[in-house]
């Protein structure tokens, strides 16, 4: 429970009143007071997203416009490539791509989405990192870009099997969108930025809305009987089953994109012998790892018993050795799998799918199998 004086320092999103009205159990998250669950509860909220649709408030996340001073989008894209190992130049108008800000040591400062909006780039970054990200962008790109935090916009995510049919009632255009399409759409008469993406492993949309219009839009979506509001608790279990990283837990400044098993997100053009190889922070560490692999790797973990294995548990090669070989970075219970599920780091020698390691929980070493991610197949509309 939070003390009252602590609570008053927490920021509210424009949907705060809606959360309270819907029985949101409010907790502190990244400086915001956010609903960890509603009266439905984490388990049913999670299952509801996979079989129907759920609405998430992610307004605490940072939305930033990068506007090229020259007016040429390529200049902004080239400039951003100094800070991320992704091919930004190749993002077509109306498309978005997953990226990471890296540091000189090759570690990850934050992970983000980058969309090409034709005349500028639109970025969505993590709430806990947004102030640092803005400073990082200003320090790195101010010569080429105007960095504009879009603080007057809210962000909501509609996710799940029925997300398309629900949203299409308010905006017929969205049905034609494919996974990672992103751009301006009019929803229920409001100018929004809509992307077909999310962080649950399900098909769905993220919708950036002017803050003063978000409550009306959220209520319109929740008026559909297919939609329930979903809190951070289910957001966490959904993304864990989908094998998606939580910044500050599964990835951070000490993990490189290759150690984090995110090399799929680094295009050929930025790798050794690519058209624009390197030229980003930490390239001297990341490029060799892309060629030769890293000594450790983020893996999915499926505990063999029923005991949830949680963040911070040490991983061992067997039941007797005193030295841990790895650590669990996220873990809990996967409602769709009806089983415990986790992810963590292991030496590459133990990281192959199917290898068995032992997770220590309350003094006991529990057999845990390295499992392929996503644990629950994703349903993206490609």
């Amino acid at each position, binding site marked *: 429970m939070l003390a009252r004086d602590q609570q008053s320092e927490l920021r509210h999103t424009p949907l705060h009143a809606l959360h309270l009205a819907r029985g949101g159990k409010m907790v502190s998250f990244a400086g915001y007071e956010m609903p960890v669950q509603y009266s439905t509860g984490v*388990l049913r909220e999670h299952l509801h997203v996979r079989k129907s649709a759920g609405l998430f408030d992610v307004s605490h996340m940072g939305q930033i416009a990068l506007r090229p001073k020259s007016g040429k989008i390529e200049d902004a894209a080239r400039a951003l490539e100094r800070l991320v190992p992704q091919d930004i130049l190749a993002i077509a108008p109306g498309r978005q791509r997953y990226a990471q800000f890296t540091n000189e040591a090759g570690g990850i400062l934050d992970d983000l989405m980058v969309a090409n909006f034709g005349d500028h780039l639109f970025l969505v970054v993590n709430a806990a990192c947004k102030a640092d990200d803005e400073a990082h962008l200003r320090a790195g790109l101010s010569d080429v870009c105007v960095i504009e935090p879009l603080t007057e916009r809210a962000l909501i995510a509609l996710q799940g099997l029925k997300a398309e049919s629900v949203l299409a009632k308010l905006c017929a255009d969205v049905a034609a969108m494919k996974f990672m399409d992103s751009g301006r759409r009019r929803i229920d008469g409001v100018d929004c930025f809509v992307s077909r993406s999310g962080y649950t492993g399900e098909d769905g949309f993220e919708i950036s809305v002017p803050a003063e219009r978000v409550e009306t839009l959220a209520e319109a979506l929740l008026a559909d009987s297919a939609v329930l509001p979903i809190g951070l608790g289910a957001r966490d*279990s959904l993304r864990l089953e989908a094998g998606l990283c939580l910044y500050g837990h599964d990835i951070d400044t000490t993990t490189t994109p290759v150690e984090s098993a995110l090399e799929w997100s680094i295009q050929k053009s930025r790798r050794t012998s690519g058209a624009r190889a390197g030229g980003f922070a930490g390239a001297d560490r990341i490029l060799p790892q892309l060629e030769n692999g890293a000594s450790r790797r983020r893996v999915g973990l499926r505990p063999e018993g029923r005991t949830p294995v*949680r963040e911070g548990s040490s991983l061992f090669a067997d039941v007797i050795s005193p030295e841990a070989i790895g650590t669990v970075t996220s873990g809990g219970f996967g409602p769709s799998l009806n089983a415990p599920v986790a992810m963590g780091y292991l030496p590459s020698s133990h990281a192959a799918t199917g290898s068995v390691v032992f997770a220590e929980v309350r003094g006991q070493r529990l057999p845990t199998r390295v499992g392929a991610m996503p644990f629950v197949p994703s349903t993206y509309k490609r």
Partner: protein
Amino acid sequence: MTTLFTSDHEWLRIDGDVATIGVTDYAQSQLGDVVFVELPKVGRSLKKAEAAAVVESVKAASDVYAPISGEVLEVNDALTAEPALINSDAGGKAWLFKLKIADRSELDGLMDEAAYSKHTA
């Protein structure tokens, strides 16, 4: 039979020299959906305030402490197969374990139902 409560949201039903122990309805409402329960071994001798059982929701693990000292006589194996019983019937079918009361004076500090209601108000 008397029912007593702890400030950690456990209940004890006292029947002679046996105490049946569970978590309260208030506790389950705070925990959320229970997905896993770990119970003590029968025959284990618990000291008051020692971690005795673990109740886990999707999000977190919570320890259940022995409210009094005593030997574990019986555990509720039904919870292993159906942890959600704690959400549906915390005060009844979802009892956790039974203790042979070692020291009756340890019961003195516990709350009755009226005091516990005040505690959670």
